Every structure is written in C-alpha cells, then in structure tokens.
C-alpha cells in the first residue's frame, strides 16, 4: 500500500481500514499489508520523491509482493512510474479521490483502479433541499492546482442553481477565514472545497479546516467528504470512504484472483451519499424530514430504543410470545367453551328428545295411571249428585266423597307432574338430591308400564342413602331408560320370569351405586363393547341414543356406568354417583 499523504489524513485512515477489512474478510489466509507513506503534502519536492522511491526499492528488494495498492491522491506517479520502476511484474490497483482527469499514461502501465469524484452537484442539491432559503453560497477553496480543479467543478455545478450567489474565497489565508465565517448573514451557507495549500502556501487537510471553521461559523457549513462530518459541519452529499474502500478491495481481490489489470477499465464514480450531522441540524433548526429518503443522519443521540434495542427486542419478543400464548389460550378457551356450550346444548336437546321418546313408550301406561284417579273422581262426583237429589242428603257421605275427590285429584296431579318434569326441556342444573326419593319416584313413574307389561318391578335400598349432587331430571332419565330397557329385554319371558330389580347401595369408595337387574336375554358378548355408542341398538325399533345419553349424563355427574351379564340370566346395568359429603 503506497500512500501519497501522511499516515494521519483523516480521509485516508477510513479508506485504508475499509480496504484492509474488506479484503481480509474475503479470504481465509492472513493477508500481510505493508504500508508506505510519501507525505507529499509536507514534502512536495522532487528530491523527496526520489529518496522515497530509492527507499522502497531497497526496502523491498527480493521481497515477493502480490499486489500494489496505490492511494495516489493527486499524484499518479505512485500508480504508474514508481511501481513500474520498482516492481514491474506486480499488478497495480489504485483508488483516488480527486477531480483530476486520469493521465493518459496510465493506460500504458496496465493498471486499474477507482477514481472517486466529489459529488458537487449532489451537495449543492442537498444544500438547497435542506435550506431552500439559501441565497448565497460561500465556497472556501485552496490555491493548489488540485484545489483549483475542484473549484472549477463547483463553478460548473453552480450554474444549475438559479437565484443563488456563489462567492469563492480562494485568496484568503485560513487564519483570516476563521474570523470571516463568524459574521456571515442569514441566507448564506459555507461550502468547504479542497484546500491543500492556502494562499500563504500553508498546508491543510480539509477535515482540519472544517474543524476550524464550522463550530464558530455564523451560518451552516457544508463539506464534501464523509470524514469531515463530525467537525461541526452540517454535511453534504459526501464521498463515503468506507464504501469506496470496500469497492477498491473487491477490485483488488479480482486482480489477485487472476484478472489482468489492463483488462479491467478504470472506474470513475461520481455519486455521493447525502449525509448530515444531527447536532448541526439541531443547531440550525433544519428539519430531519427535509433529508432525502436515502439520506444518512450521524451523531443522533441514541434513543432509549437505540440504546437498548436488543433488550427491548428481546423483551418485546418475550412479551409478544406471552401475549400470543395467552391470546391463543384465551381463544382456545373461548372456542372450547363455545364448543362445550354447543355440545351441552345438543346434549340437553338430545336428552330431551330421548326422554320424550321414552315417555311415548310409556304413554299408554301413563294414560292408564292418570285415568284411575280421574275415573274415581267422576264416579264420586256422580255419587254426590245422587246423594244431593235426596230429600235429606247425607252430608257426612258427601263430605267423605269430597275428601276422596281431593285425594284423587292430587294423585292425578302427581302423575302429571312426574311426566311433565321429564317432558319439559330442561337445562342441566346441579343440586343436592335425595337419591332415595328420586329412585322411588322414578320407579313409581315406571310402575304403570311395568304393570301393563306384567313385570314385577321392585326397588331395594337401605333406609338411608347419602345425598348426591346432580340434576334430578337427567338422573331420572337414566334410571327410567335402564328400567325400560330391562323390561324390553324380558318381553319374551314367561310372566313369572319378568323380574326387574332396582337396587341402590353405598359403595366403599364414597360413591352410591345403583344397579338395574333384569332376567332378560342378556347382552350378546360381541355387542357388549359397543353398548354405549351412539346409534348402537339391539332393538329393531330402537334409536340407539338411550344408553349413549345415559353414559353422558352419568359421566357429567362424575360417575361411571357399566353393563354386565348376570351369572344366571339377564343383564345388570350399574351406575355410580359420587356421594355428596357436604
């Protein structure tokens, strides 16, 4: 690496580092970089150049070099003559930031490289964009030929701006400039061009100049190089040294990879990158929003977000994850609740339908049960009428008749009540229930039908049964279903063999067990498994819902229902219900 300037030139430091980093990143083996600095700004005489060349010649004699990377600034001898004289077989790649034409001679040396121009048009455009009220632009330039070349280009670009006055300060020593920029009127901005030497021949670096002028200037100061931002200047459409270094590195890698430099055309790049100093924007009250979309803002204090981005992102991710999980769970629960409600609704609906169908099976028996008291009432009333027709009615007899009528009326009412509670649509409700009473009532309800079918229906239970918790109607339904099934199973039996027993007892595990035992045909072993499946039936006109619903009801009560065949004959259906310990 051969540099025209000294080690300390701010622009070159960024550039050099960018090139090294980019190249080293691209290859696995370590690249050995050797750097030499001509320091032409301080030692510009021919003798110095000759000594430098001799020095390099002696220093690198016998050394195996793979590539010369030249940073010629404005001196193309570092690209052409010098390497050609010292290392004729080593390919040369150069990178330069200047406004000069690439010398014709370069083509005969077979070199390639990148020449980066200052984006003067872009910078003037940025000035007008950020400060549309600008009427005058003071351009501070140097006296060297390079500086004049830059100024010439600025003048060219200035023609594109109408209504803006350009003031070129090229003949003022730097020391004087410091005072001059302090009293510039509003509507004026300063643009720092290249200043290598001022009129007094003093050597400067642009970055240092910007540092000297920008902080104390009464108006915003604009610059051309990225490395000058941070000095107090507002910014400019600047040369991005990092990007330039990376591009140069890629080019160098291509050549190292075997590409012949003479086959790769020299690239001349003119695009800059609109870049501003956030602090300067604040100072001059320039709104960020005026910056073009591709603009870069530097030195903006990090917001809480920027300072703790990772933490915030992680926290946010965790939070979002939790929220999503919670949301998901909530949605799932809602969904499940809705589904459960739907299932429950359908279940109650279905339970009602099966109850009605069960009642239909018992309708004739129930009508019979109802006609008994109604008939008695009718005959009693008729008897009373006859008594009343007598000259001296037997009031005692009539009173007895009325008492009987009342009794039979209550009897009819209770039959209707029993039916009605089962026929009604009914939502599941959970109450403490007297199981014994429930069993007795259900057996009473089924008795007329048992009677009609000549079934001996008996209920066996201890004097005290623990209370259970549940829904009266649904539990009655289960029991009724089992009783009716049992009676169906015994239809083919001789009359003496039609015994159906409902037996309740307290089981050991704090449950109450109710067993309905018949003496019927029993359950075929192959059907046993599917007994509680919906739509499974062994009866020709069965719906297949009774046991399925019974199972649902019992399980909803926290109990179990099962069926088995008796040793002798018939089957027994048993269900358990947790006893209510409260």
């Amino acid at each position, binding site marked *: 690496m051969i540099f025209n300037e000294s080690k300390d030139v701010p622009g070159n430091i960024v550039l050099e580092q960018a090139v090294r980093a980019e190249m080293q990143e691209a290859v696995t083996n370590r690249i050995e970089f050797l750097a030499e600095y001509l320091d032409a700004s301080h030692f510009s005489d021919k003798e110095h150049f000759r000594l430098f060349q001799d020095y390099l010649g002696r220093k690198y004699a016998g050394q195996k070099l793979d590539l010369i990377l030249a940073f010629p600034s404005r001196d193309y001898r570092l690209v052409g003559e010098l390497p050609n004289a010292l290392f004729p077989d080593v390919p040369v790649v150069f990178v330069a930031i200047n406004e000069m034409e690439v010398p014709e001679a370069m083509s005969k040396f077979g070199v390639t490289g990148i020449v980066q121009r200052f984006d003067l048009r872009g910078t003037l455009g940025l000035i007008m964009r950020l400060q549309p009220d600008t009427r005058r632009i003071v351009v501070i330039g140097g006296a060297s030929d390079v500086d004049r070349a830059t100024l010439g280009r600025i003048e060219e670009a200035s023609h594109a701006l109408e209504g803006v006055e350009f003031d070129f300060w090229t003949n003022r020593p730097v020391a004087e400039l410091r005072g001059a920029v302090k009293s510039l009127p509003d509507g004026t901005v300063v643009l720092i061009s290249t200043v290598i030497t001022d009129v007094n021949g003093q050597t400067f670096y642009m970055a240092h100049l910007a540092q000297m002028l920008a902080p104390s200037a009464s108006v915003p100061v604009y610059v051309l190089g990225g490395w000058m931002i941070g000095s107090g200047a507002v910014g400019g459409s600047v040369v991005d040294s990092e990007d330039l270094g990376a591009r140069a590195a890629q080019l160098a890698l291509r050549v190292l990879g075997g590409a012949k430099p003479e086959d790769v055309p020299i690239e001349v790049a003119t695009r800059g990158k609109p870049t501003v100093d956030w602090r300067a924007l604040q100072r001059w009250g320039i709104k960020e929003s005026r910056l073009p979309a591709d603009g870069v803002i530097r030195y903006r204090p990090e917001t809480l977000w920027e300072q703790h981005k990772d933490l915030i992102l992680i926290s946010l991710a965790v939070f979002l994850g939790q929220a999503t999980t919670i949301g998901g769970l909530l949605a799932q629960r809602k969904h499940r609740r809705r589904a459960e409600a739907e299932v429950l609704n359908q279940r109650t609906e279905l339970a009602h339908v099966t109850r009605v169908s069960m009642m239909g099976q018992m309708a*004739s028996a129930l*009508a*019979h*049960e109802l*006609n*008994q*008291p*109604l*008939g*008695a*009432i*009718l*005959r*009693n009333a*008729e*008897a009373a009428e*006859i*008594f009343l027709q007598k000259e001296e009615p037997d009031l005692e*007899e009539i009173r007895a*008749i009325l008492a*009987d009528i009342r*009794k*039979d009326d209550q*009897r009819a009412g209770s039959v209707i009540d029993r039916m009605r509670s089962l026929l009604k649509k009914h939502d599941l409700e959970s109450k403490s229930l007297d199981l014994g009473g429930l069993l007795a009532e259900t057996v009473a309800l089924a008795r007329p039908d048992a*009677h*009609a079918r000549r079934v001996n229906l008996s209920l066996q239970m201890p004097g005290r049964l623990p209370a259970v918790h549940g829904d009266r109607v649904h539990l009655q339904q289960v029991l009724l279903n089992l009783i009716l099934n049992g009676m169906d199973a015994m239809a083919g039996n001789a009359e003496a063999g039609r015994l159906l027993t409902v037996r309740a007892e307290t089981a050991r595990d704090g449950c109450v067990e109710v067993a309905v035992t018949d003496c019927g045909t029993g359950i075929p072993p192959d059907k046993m498994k599917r007994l509680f499946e919906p739509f499974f039936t062994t009866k020709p006109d069965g719906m297949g819902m009774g046991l399925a619903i019974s199972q649902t009801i019992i399980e909803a009560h926290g109990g179990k229902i099962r069926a088995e065949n008796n040793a002798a004959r018939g089957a027994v259906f048993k269900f358990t219900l947790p006893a209510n310990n409260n």
Partner: protein
Amino acid sequence: MNLPPESSTVFVVDDDVSFLKSVSRFLRAAGYSVQAFESAEAFLTRLDPGMSGCVLVDLRMPGLNGLELQESLAKSANPLPVVFLSAQGDIPTTVQAMQRGAEDFLTKLSPKEKLLDAVRRALARGARERKERGRREELRGRFGALTPRELEVLEHVVQGKLNKQIAGELGINERTVKLHRTNLTRRLQVRSVAELTRLVEEAGLFKRGQPE
C-alpha cells in the same frame, strides 16, 4: 229409575282401591246392592252358585287380570255376566273380552248412563240366565229319571223317527219301542211329541259341543 231385582248384587273387582270405592259408592247411591273386591282371587274364593247379579271388573290387575277372571267365571257353576271397566282399553283386548261373552267393555271415564245401562243389562241377563239355568236343571232332573234305553228312544223320537225305524236302528221289537215311549211321556208329564221336543230343547239335551 228402574230398580233392579231385590236379590241382585253388583260385584266390583278392582285393584285400584280408590276407584273401587268410588264406583261402589256410586252404584249404591244409584240403588244397587254392591260388593267390592280388591282382586280377582278374592272374588273367586267368595263366589258361590247362590250369588246372583253381575261382575264389574277392571281389566288390568296384578295376579289374575280381568280377562282371566272372565275365563274362570265362565267355567264356574255360576257364570255371572261380566262388564269390563278399564282405565284404558285397547281394541284387541276389547274384542277378546266381547267374544268371550262380556256384556260390555267400558272405560273408567265412561258416562254414568253407559255404566248404569251396562249394569242394568248385565243384571237382567244374569237374572235371565239364572232362570234358564234353574229351569234347565229342573228338566235335567226329570230327564235324569229315564233309563238309558228310554233316553236312546227319546233321542230318536225327537228326531221325528217312526217307531218302526227306531226299532230297526236299535235292533229291538217295535212293541218294545212303543212301551218305552209310553213310559217316558208319562214320566216327563208331556202329552205330545211337540211338547217333548220343546222340553228336550229347553233342557239342552243331545246338543253336540254343549258344555255341561
């Protein structure tokens, strides 16, 4: 209201005590003599040939039901007329009951007029059948005094056969036939063959399939 014969009783049989009581009460108020039974068995054990009247019976009962009671009653020495009284009847049962000779088949909610009418008819039929039964038994007593040979001759006589034919069929002398005829008309206290035929008919004699 036509009062029933003094000696007739309505026997009510129903396991539903409440209805049993009310219908008995009503029939008593209507002027009938009533006896109530809570089961068919209880009634049948009390049944004796001296009882007259009719039976008002529930169809569905534990133990013997109405139809079974009707059957037992028909086989007994005192086949009282039966009126069925059911909480709810169905057609097949009704038909069966009526085919077996039930006087009527009513529901418990039937209007009282129908009930009283049925009871009245049943009682009348009971009285009539009882009377017929009495007459038949009296005649059978008379016929029972005949010798077997005389009965044989009698059977041929009521079929309108001549003495000569009868003698040929029985393989006996025509004179002997004439002697038997004289004897049996004297014992049965009839004066003509027409009267003899009517009596045989009344007694239910020589009828095939006639239950004894």
